[in-house]
């Protein structure tokens, strides 16, 4: 769905962000259904409700900039430009998956676009992103990194070490805290101390800002400003993005532990509703939005059909890419 050529740039960007967010939303809805039905195995952490953050932040990045993700990584991958069809193949564990079917949901990665991977260990993506930048600096590359971390993850030692480290070495890293209020079934606030994450970051010398993480326009604006500064050498910065995990922690989690009123209060804040309202306000008509939705929905459905039809990886691949010396089957 190419928008009319005569749209103002701002609106064209808005539409592009909408498309990315839709892709994430439909991808997640599709893989959640597949996980619940048992077609996709293992843990799937849906990004539903948080689409504006990955979309806005990644829009502010260059193709060769890095993104380090979390266990809830599909949105970051799509935001950075990974192919949803190859992601679908990965989640189905098939040939052609981003990681050859060997990683699954918690390891979607695409190094060709600087997407360093989802990660099964909270916080490790953050420290690794610092290294990717420190290494790149040594190689004379002017890339930056966005390191995503959850509100719960903000209490892990390595993440806190990383704040100090990034500032010490003045690394161009944008820490993005996706504050969806929950760590699995725990309300994060109940295990998190202090006046807030911006103050926490400031305690390590990082300029920090809080944004409405459900407003993709605002997220992108904040991220752009920060990324420009960091590429210019200002050192690391911290973006605290407030959002809400609309779904459960996992595809199968109905999240009964959440108060009904909370959900009711949250629903109107859905980032997709927000960008739709914005687009409508900027003159995009309902049928255009509907057409966008239909097109994205269809492309995800096609991707799922293709994944279901694809082959599983050949048996030999189980022993490939472990290490160059030292055969894995020794002693068997």
């Amino acid at each position, binding site marked *: 769905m190419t928008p009319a050529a005569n749209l103002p740039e701002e609106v064209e960007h808005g539409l592009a962000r909408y498309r990315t967010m839709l892709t994430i939303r439909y991808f997640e809805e599709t893989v959640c259904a597949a996980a619940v039905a048992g077609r996709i195995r293992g*843990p799937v952490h849906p990004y539903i409700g948080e689409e504006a953050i990955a979309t806005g932040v990644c829009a502010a990045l260059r193709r060769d900039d890095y993104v380090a993700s979390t266990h809830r990584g599909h949105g970051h991958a799509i935001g950075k430009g990974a192919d949803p069809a190859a992601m679908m193949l990965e989640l189905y*564990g098939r040939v052609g998956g981003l990681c050859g079917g*060997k990683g699954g949901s918690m*390891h979607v990665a695409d190094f060709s676009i600087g997407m360093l991977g989802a990660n099964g*260990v909270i916080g490790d993506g953050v420290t690794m992103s610092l290294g990717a930048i420190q290494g790149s600096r040594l190689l004379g590359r002017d890339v930056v990194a966005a390191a995503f971390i959850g509100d719960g993850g903000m209490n892990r030692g390595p993440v806190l070490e990383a704040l100090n480290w990034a500032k010490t070495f003045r690394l161009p890293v944008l820490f993005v805290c996706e504050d969806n209020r929950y*760590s699995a079934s725990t309300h994060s606030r109940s295990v998190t101390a202090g006046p807030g994450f911006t103050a926490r970051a400031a305690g390590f010398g990082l300029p920090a800002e809080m944004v409405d993480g459900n407003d993709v326009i605002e997220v992108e604006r904040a991220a752009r400003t920060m990324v420009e500064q960091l590429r210019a050498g200002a050192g690391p910065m911290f973006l605290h993005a407030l959002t809400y995990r609309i779904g459960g922690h996992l595809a199968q989690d109905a999240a009964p532990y959440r108060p009904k009123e909370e959900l009711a209060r949250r629903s109107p804040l859905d980032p997709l509703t927000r960008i739709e309202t914005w687009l409508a306000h900027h003159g995009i008509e309902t049928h255009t939005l509907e057409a966008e939705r239909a097109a994205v929905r269809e492309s995800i459905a096609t991707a799922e059909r293709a994944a279901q039809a694809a082959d*599983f*990886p050949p048996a030999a691949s189980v022993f490939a890419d472990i290490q160059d010396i030292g055969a*894995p089957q020794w*002693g068997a």
Partner: protein
Amino acid sequence: MGRMTYAEASILALREEMRRDPRVWALGEDIGRGGIGGQYKGLQDEFGAQRICDTPISESTIMGVGVGAALAGTRPVIELRITDFALCSTDEIVNQAAKVRYMLGGQARAPLVVRQPNGMCAGFAAQHSQSTEAWWIHTPGLVVVAPSTPRDNRALLKAAIRSDDPVIYLEHKEMWGVDGEVPDAEETIELGKARVAREGRDLTIVTWSKTASFAEEAARTLAGEGIEAEVVDLRTLYPWDRDCVIASVERTGRLLVAQESVEIGGFGAEIVADVTQHAFGALKAPPARIGAPRTPVPYSQPLEEIVRVDAPKIAAAARRVAAARRG
């Protein structure tokens, strides 16, 4: 005698111990609403948030706090969610929990239990499917326990909580929903004692945790072929019941260790090496191991199946051992 799941059996054990001893408490991420396998379900309602304590995602501190609390006279049950995350608190386990009694000359002890569900979990891939028992076996100061049935999970968890030694308690990630008979009456199992799950004269299969059920299944298959395998479920991995294993090998003359974890450098190597050194004369064939290849656990189902040690693979290895002759 009633039926209950592996998870329910552990809830029962913890409830019994917490009622019995006010010094017993549990801490870990997200346990208030039941924990990753439902193994804490209902406990916070009864014992409150101080004794079933939801923590920040701070693995180092969870473990450090557990050690400190044990030193101060309580008996913490430390929940690390899965053994893969225990890698984030290895230092506190090895450098503090295991050694503190020794290096402080016995003036204090750390009676704690570290629960860290072990092993593969279908579809969970490389960072959520590890087995770490080999490391803890090698670490002075630690007792290591791995229950293979609901009944054992109840009785061994109680014994672990009552132990004055730090205990690494390895439930199996895929067993929470497995059910079995559990006696109504309170029961503990002496740590360090194995269970002969099945008797047999032709070879000894030593195993533990979930693999015990695969070994029993393999033994049933083999029985149909005229091979009678004795299956020894170790229950406690350190100290392992060497007397029981050696007595069995002296009867059968043949040893196979069956483990889910990576074979190279795994716990099976210790058993084979030890039995070889101490019962060499009794061996009618080279002792053997069956374990996973030295491969991270892949996500895709058919690949995962390749690295999973199951009953057919154990049976095949057992046939080779039964047929082999002293070289």
